[in-house]
C-alpha cells in the first residue's frame, strides 16, 4: 500500500515538473533564437561597400575576403586617422564586415558554451574544456598523417581534421571518466594526466607530420589553435551549426542533464542511462570546444566554457535561469570584448574577450544578488544591526523593569524613563563605543531620545519594541526550560541566539504552549511573563 502511494507521489512529481518546465523550455528556445537570429539579421541587413550582392547567407559568405595573416591585429578597414570616437561609432554600428563576422562567431560561441558550460560547472568539470582542447591535438595530427599515408601529397581536408580532433577530444574526455571510475586517481589528477599525455602525443605526431615533405603540415598547429581575430565566415557557419545543435540538445535533454548535474546516483536509481547521458553531454562539450578551438583558439574556448557559468552562478540558484543567464553573459562578454579590439590596433580579440569575461566574473563575484560578496555582506550587516538594536532595547527594558509598578500597563509606562549610558554598558558588558553606536542608530530610527546629561529614554515606539524584544526573550527562555529541560543558568545564552529570529506565528505558538503553566499569557492583551531569573525579593 505504502509502496503504491510512493509510486503515485513520484509520478505526480514527474508530471508536475514536466508541466512546469515546458513553457520555460520554450522561453529558453525563444530567447536564444531571438539572440542568434538578431545577430544574423544584423550581419545580413547592413550592406557595406565591400558587399552589395544578393542577400543570402551563402552569397555573403562567398564574398569574404581572407584577412592577410601578416597583420592579424589591425582593425581591418579602420581609417588610421580616425579619432577614437569615430572608431567607436564605426565599431558599434558594425560598419566593418570583418567586425561583424568576428562578432557573430564569438557571440554565438559565447552563448553555446555558456549554456553547455553550465552543466560542466555543476558537474565539477569546469576545466574539461582545457583537457579537451589539448586532447584534440593528436587527433588532428593523426588525421593529417593518415590522410598523407592514404594519398601522399594531398591537400588537407577540413572535415577529416575536424573529425580527428573530435574523436581524440572525445577519447580524452572518455579517458578522464575511465581513470576516475576504474582507478584510484581522482578527477583533477585524471584531467591533468590526460591533458599532458595527450598533448605530448600531439606534439610528437606534429613533429612527425612536419618532417613529412609531401603534406602541407606547415601551419597545422595554427590551424588547430585559431585566433578569434582571424575568424572567417566559414568558421561562423560551423560555429552556428554546432551551437544550434548543442542548444537544441540541451533544451530537449534539459531535465536529464540537470538531474545528472545535481544527483548522478539518484538519476541512476531512477533508471536513467547515466553513462549514456554523461557521454552525450561530454560529446556536446567536445563538439562546441573543437569547433571553437579552430576558430578562436584554446584560451577563449576554455574561458567561455568557465567564465559565463561561473559568473551566472552568483545571480541565481535556479538552474534554468542560470543556464539562460550564462548564455546571455557569454554573448554579452563576446560583444563587449570584440568592440575594443575592433577599435584599437594591436588589441587582440581573444584575450580581450577573456578579460571582459574575467571582469564580468569579478563584477558578479562582488554584486551577484544570490551569492555575491557585497549583498551577503549587507545582509549580514543588516542582521547584526537588528540584533544589536533588539539587545539594546531589551537591556533598557530590563533596567527599567524593577522600577515599574506591578499592575501598571507596562508598555506605556516604559516610555520616558531615563537610563544612564553607564548602566547600559554595565548591563551587557558591552564596550562603551558599541553602546554609543547602537544608541545613535536607535536614535536615528526614533526609538530612543537623548535625555539630560548622558541619559537616554525610550520613545513610545521604542517602548513598544523594547517590550516585544524582552517578551520574546522570556518566552523562549520559558519554553526552553519547559520543553527542552535547559538549565536556568544556560537558558539566557541560548535564548539570546534565537529570540531575534522568532516569527509572529511562532510567538503565538509559544504563548499557546506556555499558557497552561503561565495562565497570564493566555490573555488577549500581551503581557510580560516574569523573568525566570528574577528573584522574588527583587519584585517585592
Amino acid at each position, binding site marked *: 500500500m505504502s509502496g503504491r502511494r510512493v509510486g503515485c507521489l513520484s509520478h505526480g512529481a514527474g508530471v508536475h515538473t514536466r508541466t512546469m518546465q515546458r513553457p520555460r523550455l520554450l522561453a529558453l528556445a525563444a530567447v536564444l533564437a531571438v539572440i542568434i537570429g538578431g545577430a544574423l539579421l544584423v550581419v545580413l541587413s547592413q550592406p557595406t561597400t565591400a558587399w552589395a550582392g544578393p542577400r543570402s547567407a551563402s552569397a555573403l559568405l562567398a564574398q569574404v575576403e581572407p584577412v592577410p595573416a601578416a597583420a592579424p591585429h589591425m582593425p581591418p578597414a579602420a581609417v588610421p586617422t580616425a579619432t577614437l570616437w569615430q572608431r567607436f561609432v564605426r565599431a558599434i554600428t558594425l560598419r566593418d564586415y570583418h567586425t561583424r563576422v568576428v562578432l557573430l562567431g564569438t557571440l554565438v560561441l559565447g552563448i553555446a558554451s555558456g549554456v553547455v558550460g553550465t552543466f560542466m560547472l555543476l558537474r565539477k568539470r569546469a576545466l574539461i574544456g582545457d583537457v579537451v582542447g589539448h586532447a584534440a591535438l593528436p587527433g588532428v595530427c593523426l588525421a593529417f598523417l593518415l590522410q598523407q599515408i592514404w594519398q601522399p601529397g594531398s591537400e588537407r581536408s577540413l572535415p577529416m581534421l575536424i573529425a580527428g580532433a573530435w574523436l581524440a577530444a572525445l577519447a580524452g574526455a572518455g579517458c578522464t571518466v575511465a581513470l576516475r571510475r576504474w582507478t584510484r586517481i581522482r578527477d583533477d589528477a585524471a584531467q591533468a594526466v590526460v591533458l599532458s*599525455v595527450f598533448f605530448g602525443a600531439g606534439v610528437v605526431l606534429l613533429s612527425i607530420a612536419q618532417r613529412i615533405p609531401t603534406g602541407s603540415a606547415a601551419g597545422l598547429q595554427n590551424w588547430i589553435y585559431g585566433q578569434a581575430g582571424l575568424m572567417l565566415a566559414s568558421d561562423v557557419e560551423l560555429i552556428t551549426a554546432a551551437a544550434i545543435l548543442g542548444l537544441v540538445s540541451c533544451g530537449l535533454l534539459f531535465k536529464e542533464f540537470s538531474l545528472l548535474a545535481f544527483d548522478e546516483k539518484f538519476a541512476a536509481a531512477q533508471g536513467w542511462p547515466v553513462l549514456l547521458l554523461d557521454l552525450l553531454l561530454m560529446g556536446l562539450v567536445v563538439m562546441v570546444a573543437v569547433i571553437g578551438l579552430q576558430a578562436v583558439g584554446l584560451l577563449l574556448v576554455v574561458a567561455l566554457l568557465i567564465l559565463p557559468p561561473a559568473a551566472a552562478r552568483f545571480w541565481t540558484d535556479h538552474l534554468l535561469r542560470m543556464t539562460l543567464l550564462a548564455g546571455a553573459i557569454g554573448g554579452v562578454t563576446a560583444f563587449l570584448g570584440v568592440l575594443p579590439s575592433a577599435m584599437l590596433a594591436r588589441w587582440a580579440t581573444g584575450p580581450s574577450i577573456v578579460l571582459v569575461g574575467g571582469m564580468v566574473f569579478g563584477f558578479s563575484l562582488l554584486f551577484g544578488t544570490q551569492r555575491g560578496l557585497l549583498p551577503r555582506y549587507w545582509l549580514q550587516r543588516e542582521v547584526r544591526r537588528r540584533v544589536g538594536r533588539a539587545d539594546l532595547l531589551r537591556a533598557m527594558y530590563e533596567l527599567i523593569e524593577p522600577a515599574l509598578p506591578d499592575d501598571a500597563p507596562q508598555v506605556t509606562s516604559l516610555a520616558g524613563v531615563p537610563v544612564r549610558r553607564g548602566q547600559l554598558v554595565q548591563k551587557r558588558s558591552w564596550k562603551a563605543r558599541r553602546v554609543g553606536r547602537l544608541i545613535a542608530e536607535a536614535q536615528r530610527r526614533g526609538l530612543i531620545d537623548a535625555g539630560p546629561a548622558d541619559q537616554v529614554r525610550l520613545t513610545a515606539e521604542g517602548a513598544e519594541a523594547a517590550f516585544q524584544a524582552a517578551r520574546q526573550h522570556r518566552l523562549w527562555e520559558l519554553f526552553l526550560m519547559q520543553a527542552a529541560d535547559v538549565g536556568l543558568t544556560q537558558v539566557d545564552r541560548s535564548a539570546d541566539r534565537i529570540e531575534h529570529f522568532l516569527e509572529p506565528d511562532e510567538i503565538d505558538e509559544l504563548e499557546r504552549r506556555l499558557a497552561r503553566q503561565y495562565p497570564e499569557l493566555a490573555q488577549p492583551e500581551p503581557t510580560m511573563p516574569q523573568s525566570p531569573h528574577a528573584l522574588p525579593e527583587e519584585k517585592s
Partner: protein
Amino acid sequence: MIGEAARLLSDWSTVDTWIVLIAALAAMACALPGVYLLLRRQSMLGDALSHTVLPGIVLAFLASQSLRSVGWLDSRTLHAAQHAILFGGALISGLLTALLTQWVQRRGRVEASAALGVVYTSLFALGLLLLRLWADNVHIDPDCVLFGAVENIVISAEQRASVAWFTATVLGLNLLLMLLFYKELRISTFDPALATSLGIPAQWMQLGLVAVTAATLVTAFEIVGSILVVAMLIVPAATARLCTDRLGTMIAMSLAVAAASAVLGHAAALTLPALIFQPLGFDEVRDANTAGMMAVAAGGLLVLAALLSPRYGWISRALHQMRLSIRIAAEDLLGRLYRQAEEQSRPQEAEVIDHLGQPLLIRWLAAQGLKRKGYVRRVQGHWLLTDRGHQAAARVVRAHRLWESYLAAHQQELPDDQLHFSAHRAEHFIDRNLQAELAKELQRPAQDPHGRDIPGENGNGGS
C-alpha cells in the same frame, strides 16, 4: 623489429646522454612537488601555472625596461639582472594565481577547478594583451615555451654541463626542502585541521608548496619546455599513487618513474617514428619531438601501473578474484563429493547443491587444481575423493554444518531450510580457529540441524 630498434639506438651519442640526463633531472625536480599537489587535489595547478607565469614575465620585463629608461639601471647591470627579474616576475604571478584562486574559491564559494579556470584564463589573457600591446619585441617564443626545446639547449659542451648542474641544483634544493619539511607537509596534506591544531601553519605550507612548484616550473620551462614539465608534475605522482599507499614510497617511486620516462621517452623518440613510418614510405621521418615522447612514455608507465600494480591494478585484481573463485569452486566440489560418498554409505535427505553461478572455466580449473594436489582422482568418468581429499572435504563440510548449527541456535526466526544458503557462502571463510570456537560455543554438537553428522576436527567421519 627489435634488431632495427637496436640499430637505430646504436647511433646514441653523448648528446643523447646529455639530453636524457638533463630531462631526467628536470623531470625528477618537477615530480617532487607534484606528489603533494596530487595528494592535495590541485593537479591542474601545474597547467594553470604554465600559463599564468606569462603576465608576470611580461610585467617584469616592462618594469626592467622602464628602470633602464629612468636611468636607475645601466644596460650592463640590466643585462645581468634581467634573468633574475624575469624569474621574480614569474614567481610572483605564480603565487598570485594560487592566492587568487584560493580567495575566489573560499570567499566566492566557487568550486575549486572553476576558480582555478577563472583565474588562470583571465591572468593569461592579461599577459597576452600586455605582450601584444607593449612588449611585442620581447623574445618570448611561444613555440619554444610550449613545445619544449630540450634538443636545442645541449649544443655546446660547456653550456650543457652548466645546464645539467643548474638542474641538479634545483632538484637538490627541492629534495632538501621536502626532507626538511617532510613531517609538516605530510600532516598538512592529509589532515589540515590536525596540522593547524598541532601548530603547523597549513596555510603557509600550502603557499610554500606553491612557491616551490612555481619556481621549479619556471626554471624547468626554460630548460625542457612546458609539455614535459606539466606532464612530469602529475603523471609520475599518479603512477606512484596507483602502486602504493605510503608517502615515502610514493615519492621514491615517482622520482623513479620520472627518470624512467625520460630515458624511455628519448629512446622511443629515436626509434618508434622510424620503425612505424619508414615502412609506410616516409623515409624522412627519423625521430620525433623528445619532450612530447617523454610525456607519452610517462603516460604509458601510468597505464602499465593501472593494469599491473600489485594491489590496485586491474589485472592483479582480476587475478586475485579469479584465484578466490577457483578456491571457492574447489571447496564446493570437495563438499559435493563428500556428501555423495556420505549418501552412498548412509542414504539420507540430499543437501541442496549449487554452484553459485560459477562459470565452467573456473570449475574446470578448480577440478584440475584438486587433481594436481592429489585430493581427487578420476575413475571411470567419475570424480572420487582420495584419503587426503576426504580430510580436506570433511573440513569444509564441518565448517558448513557448524555454521548451520550456530545459525539455528542463534537465529530462531530463520527457517531451517534457509540455513543452507548462508552456510554455503560462509563455509569458505570459517577457518580452524573459528570452527573450534563455534564447536565450543555449541558444546561440540554431533549433528547439524538437518540431522547429519558433523565431521570431526581431523576430518575423520564423526566426532
